[in-house]
């Protein structure tokens, strides 16, 4: 990690630090995605799908709350779900860069969801056996919602891919454009080694993910990009794209304007 723009990032973690880091990965992914999807509210292509996409946003934010509540206990010092969401700055966020990419059009949002939902499905399915019992409980509850989300987004990829010529081209572009943000999901991170086999090492999910994505894209008559293309990195280390700054500025504006208020 030295000699480049990720210089100076932490690479050694105690057991306690690694656990907090792991919860932060999961919670920040859920919050940032939920926040992004909530922007679709009142803008969906048809009323039924407006409702469906809000539903997925609700699930992600609901899961983020459960994860932050547990993280707050680990953090101590008066941390709450809200101080974690509203009073950290960009370099403290650990979400994957994929999730902070703009909503774009319906196809862009659907593909972003499809990539992460498929990842989340294997991740949370594995976390049901996690040695951390609270996390295992959250996973047990979430995996049903995530299965629905993964089905919903995969169905949309298929519908757009095998729909009209226009939709086929649009969603193929979404896939090509978002592809470089997917490699980061499966990066080896030092915390996985520290935490050991009682937790899911994200890098072990890559094969299943590639298989599932290939299957859906084939059904959708879409081309799968080369999995060995150059991939972006940084989110798990707190190095983000400029999009996150705007997301946080908007989300955090009220609590930061009224630091002594409760809502």
């Amino acid at each position, binding site marked *: 990690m030295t000699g480049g723009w990720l210089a100076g990032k932490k690479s050694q973690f105690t057991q306690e630090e690694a656990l907090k880091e792991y919860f932060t990965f999961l919670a920040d992914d859920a919050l940032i995605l939920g926040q992004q999807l909530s922007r679709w509210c009142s803008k969906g292509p048809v009323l039924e799908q407006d409702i469906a996409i809000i539903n997925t946003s609700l699930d992600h934010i609901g899961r983020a709350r459960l994860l932050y509540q547990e993280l707050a206990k680990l953090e101590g010092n008066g941390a709450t779900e809200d101080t974690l969401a509203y009073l950290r700055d960009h370099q403290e966020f650990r979400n994957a860069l994929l999730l902070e990419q703009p909503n774009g059009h319906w196809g862009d949002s659907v593909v972003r969801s499809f990539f992460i939902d498929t990842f989340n499905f294997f991740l949370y399915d594995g976390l049901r056996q996690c040695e951390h019992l609270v996390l295992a409980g959250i996973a047990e509850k979430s995996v049903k919602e995530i299965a629905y989300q993964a089905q919903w987004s995969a169905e949309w990829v298929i519908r*757009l891919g095998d729909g009209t010529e226009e939709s086929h081209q649009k969603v193929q572009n979404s896939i090509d454009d978002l592809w470089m943000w997917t490699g980061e999901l499966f990066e080896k991170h030092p915390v996985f080694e520290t935490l050991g086999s009682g937790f899911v090492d994200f890098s072990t999910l890559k094969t299943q993910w590639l298989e599932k994505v290939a299957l859906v894209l084939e059904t959708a008559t879409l081309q799968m990009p080369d999995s060995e293309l150059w991939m972006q990195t940084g989110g798990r280390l707190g190095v983000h794209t400029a999009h996150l700054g705007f997301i946080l500025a908007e989300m955090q504006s009220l609590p930061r304007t009224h630091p002594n208020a409760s809502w």
Partner: protein
Amino acid sequence: MGTNVSLEENFQTYVDGENKIEPKDWMPEKYRKTLIRQISQHAHSEIIGMQPEANWITRAPSLRAKLILLAKVQDEAGHGLYLYSAAETLGESREKMISDLQSGKAKYSSIFNYPTPSWADMGTIGWLVDGAAIQNQVMLTRTSYGPYARAMVKICKEESFHQRQGYEVVMKLAQGTPEQKAMAQESLNRWWWPSLMMFGPSDDESPNSAQSMKWKIKRKSNDTLRQEFVDKTVPQVEYLGLTVPDADLKWNEARGHYDFGVINWDEFYDVIQGNGPCNKERIAHHVEAHEEGAWVREAANAFAQKQAQRKKNTGAAA
């Protein structure tokens, strides 16, 4: 002609007997038209009403508040969906209703043509606007058209919940820092009068009311509903330690009701005619989402057709 008169008489007797009219029953054409107008207007109000609140979802100040607001706006989308379905039972298509909304031919509740610059508005809308809507909708659970009455039962339950949530948001502000309390008062000042306008013109100025009352589509007059709302809400304002922005408001012992000041009807008619601060913005937002979604709807239709064709081919081969 003679047969027609007797059908109408039978219809009135049936309605007078507190029976529900169902989609396949005979009904006067004007009854059908009145209902389509009213139900679609109600559906449009739910859908356009999503916008002023969706405006605050990304900025809700706590995760709990964000979740509640998101769920609330989702409920509104759901209400819009039932109501469009109820109107479809009268033979009007959703495409037609949406196109009438976008062309300005169909109306929606004027209250949504006011902006929501403050977080406090998320409380005030739930408390006053949903409160005023409930006043009207509880009456509509007994309306004479069956599908509309049944849709209203479900909608009213959710609206009551929204109203409590809205009141909770305002209460937290009213009991919070001085800045938060000022935020609540400023919001109340802007929404109080438009909320009273939601009940529509005074009874002597309301063109459609008499016939609607006779057909039991409407069960209480605009002024009666408005008075009920004021009587119910003033004590809630007082409990919060806030002030109703009406110098003429006072309890009238003899009437057993609050007297209140004169509504600015010029503002009411101006906003209805398209001159509110957000009329253009609300429709433009709806049109933009609809147009940007066109390729998605086309793709979904094309895919559904391909699937149907494949199924047919498989069936033929078997």
